[in-house]
C-alpha cells in the first residue's frame, strides 16, 4: 500500500557527503515514490540538512548516486535541477527580505517561460495563502516568521516542482502557525506532489508522512511506514520523549 510506484521518482544510493574532514553523510540509501510524502527525522547535526542540500545541488557528494526520474543528478548544477522539478525550501527559509512578496514568488518561477501559467499559479498561491495575497506589495523582510515560511513554500511551489523538499518548516514558529503550515503540507501532498520532509518535530512529521527514515550521525538507522516508526520503542525513546 505504501509502495505507490515501482520506479521511484528519487533514488539515492550510498550517498556520502563531506565538508573537508567532517564526514556529514556516511553512505545513505533512500527513495521517494511519486506522490509520496516521506519524512526524514533525526536530531540536530544528524546530517539531514546536508542530505537535502546535496539533493538540491548546493553541495557535492563525495560518492554515491542520486537518480531522479531515471536521470543521474550527480553532475547537474543546482540551478538546472530547479527546471527539472526539484525544489528545496531551505532551513531558515532563505526569503529575499529586500524583495516584495510578489517578487519573491516571481523568483520562484524564474526558470519557467510560460507567462500565462505563471499568472494563474500566482493566483493559486494567493488562494492557498490568503495572508500573502494581502501582503503582496510588502517587503518580505517585514513579515512575521510564519508568513515568511509561507512565502518560502509558495515560492518553491511557483517553480511547479515534482519533488518538494522542506527543511524544518516548523522551526521557530508558534504552535498555531506550525499547525497551519502542516495543514498546507498535507494539502499540497493531496495534489499528488512528492514531498521529502525534514523535521526535528518527529511526531508531527510522521503523522503527516506515509513513510519515514530516521537519521543518526550521518547514517540511516531505521526506516519504515510512519505508523510502525511512531510505535517503535527506539523512536519513542529518542524522539518522542516517551
Amino acid at each position, binding site marked *: 500500500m505504501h509502495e505507490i510506484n515501482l520506479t521511484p521518482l528519487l533514488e539515492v544510493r550510498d550517498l556520502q557527503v563531506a565538508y573537508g574532514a567532517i564526514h556529514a553523510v556516511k553512505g545513505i540509501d533512500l527513495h521517494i515514490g511519486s506522490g509520496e510524502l516521506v519524512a526524514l527525522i533525526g536530531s540536530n547535526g544528524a546530517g539531514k540538512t546536508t542530505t537535502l542540500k546535496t539533493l538540491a545541488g548546493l553541495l557535492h557528494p563525495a560518492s554515491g548516486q542520486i537518480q531522479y526520474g531515471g536521470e543521474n543528478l550527480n553532475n547537474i548544477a*543546482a540551478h538546472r535541477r530547479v527546471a527539472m522539478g526539484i525544489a*528545496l525550501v*531551505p532551513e531558515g527559509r*532563505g526569503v529575499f527580505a529586500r*524583495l516584495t512578496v510578489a517578487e519573491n514568488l516571481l*523568483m520562484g518561477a*524564474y526558470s519557467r517561460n510560460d507567462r500565462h501559467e505563471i499568472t494563474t499559479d500566482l493566483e493559486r498561491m494567493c488562494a492557498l495563502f490568503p495572508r500573502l495575497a494581502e501582503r503582496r506589495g510588502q517587503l518580505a523582510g517585514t513579515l512575521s516568521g510564519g508568513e515568511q515560511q509561507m512565502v518560502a513554500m509558495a515560492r*518553491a511551489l511557483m517553480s511547479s516542482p515534482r519533488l518538494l523538499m522542506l527543511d524544518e518548516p516548523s522551526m521557530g514558529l508558534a504552535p498555531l502557525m506550525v499547525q497551519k503550515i502542516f495543514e498546507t503540507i498535507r494539502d499540497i501532498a493531496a495534489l499528488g506532489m512528492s514531498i521529502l520532509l525534514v523535521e526535528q518535530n518527529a511526531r508531527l512529521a510522521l503523522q503527516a508522512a506515509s513513510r519515514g527514515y530516521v537519521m543518526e550521525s550521518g547514517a540511516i538507522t531505521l526506516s519504515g511506514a510512519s505508523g510502525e516508526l511512531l510505535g517503535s520503542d527506539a523512536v519513542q525513546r529518542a524522539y518522542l520523549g516517551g
Partner: protein
Amino acid sequence: MEIFLQQIINGLVQGSVYALVALGYTMVYGILGLINFAHGEVVMVGAMLALSALTAMLGWGAPPLLALPISLILAMLGCMVLGYGIERIAYRPLRHAPRLAPLITAIGVSIVLQNLAMMIWGRQYHAFPQLVANQPHLIGGAIINDIQIIIFILALAIMAGLIVVVHRTRLGRAMRAVAENQHAAQLMGVDINRVISITFMLGSALAAIAGVMVSANYGLAHYYMGFLLGLKAFTAAVLGGIGNLRGAMLGGLLLGLIESLGAGYIGDMTGGFLGSHYQDVFAFFVLIAVLVFRPSGLLGERIAERA
C-alpha cells in the same frame, strides 16, 4: 552669483560622470561584496577605444555624427568584454578566498591595464576630436555648452534606465536576489555566475560611456586618466552608501558639486593661499569624513543587514 551658478553647472556635469562610474562600483559591491578597484581603468580603456575608433573612422571620411555613436558603442562592447574577462580571470577563482585576496588582484589588474594602455596608446595626452559644434549657452550669466547638456541628460537617462532594469525586469530581480542570498537564488534556478558576469558587463558599459563623456568634455584622453577618476567615483559610491544604486547617483552628483564649489571658493576662503588646483583634495576630505562620521553612507543600510 554667476560664479556660483557656473560652479553648480560644472559640478552637476562632472558629478553625473562620477555617478555613472560609481554605479559600476556599487553594483559589483552589492552583488559580490567586493570593491573592483580596476573599474577606473575600464573607464580609461573605454575612452581610449572610442578615441581609436573615432580617429580611424574619421580617417576613412565617415561623417562625425555617425562616427561618434558608433565609436561609443564599440567602446561599450570592448569594455563589456574586458569587464567579463576581469571577473572571470581575477575574481571568480577567488570567490571563496579571504576578502583581501581579490582586493589585491584588483590592484594587479589595474596596474596591468594601465601599462597595457601605455604600451598601446603611448604616454602622451591625446586630443579628443571636437565633433559637435559645442555652442555655448548663457543662463543667468553662467555658461553651459552643448556637450555638457548632452552629458548631463544622457547620464540621467541612463541612470533612469538602470533603475528600471534593476527594479522592473526579470534580470534585475535575479540580480537583487543574488545580491541578497546566493544559495537561495540558486534554489530558484538562477545561474549566479551568469548574473555576476552580466553585472560586470553592465557596469563596464557604463564606465565606457563615462570615459567617452570625460574625454569629450575636456577634449583629452590619457592612459592614466582612469586612476583619479576611479578613486573619486569610488568616493562617490561610499558617500551615497556603497551597494545602493540611488546612493551612487546621489553621491556622484553631490561629489561633483562639492568639488566644483570647493574649487570655486577655496581661493576666497583661504585668502588666496590655496587655489582651484587643490580641487582634487575635496573628494578625499569627503571620503575621510564619510568613513569617520557615517560609514554606511547617505542612503546606505546598516551594515548588519548584510551579515
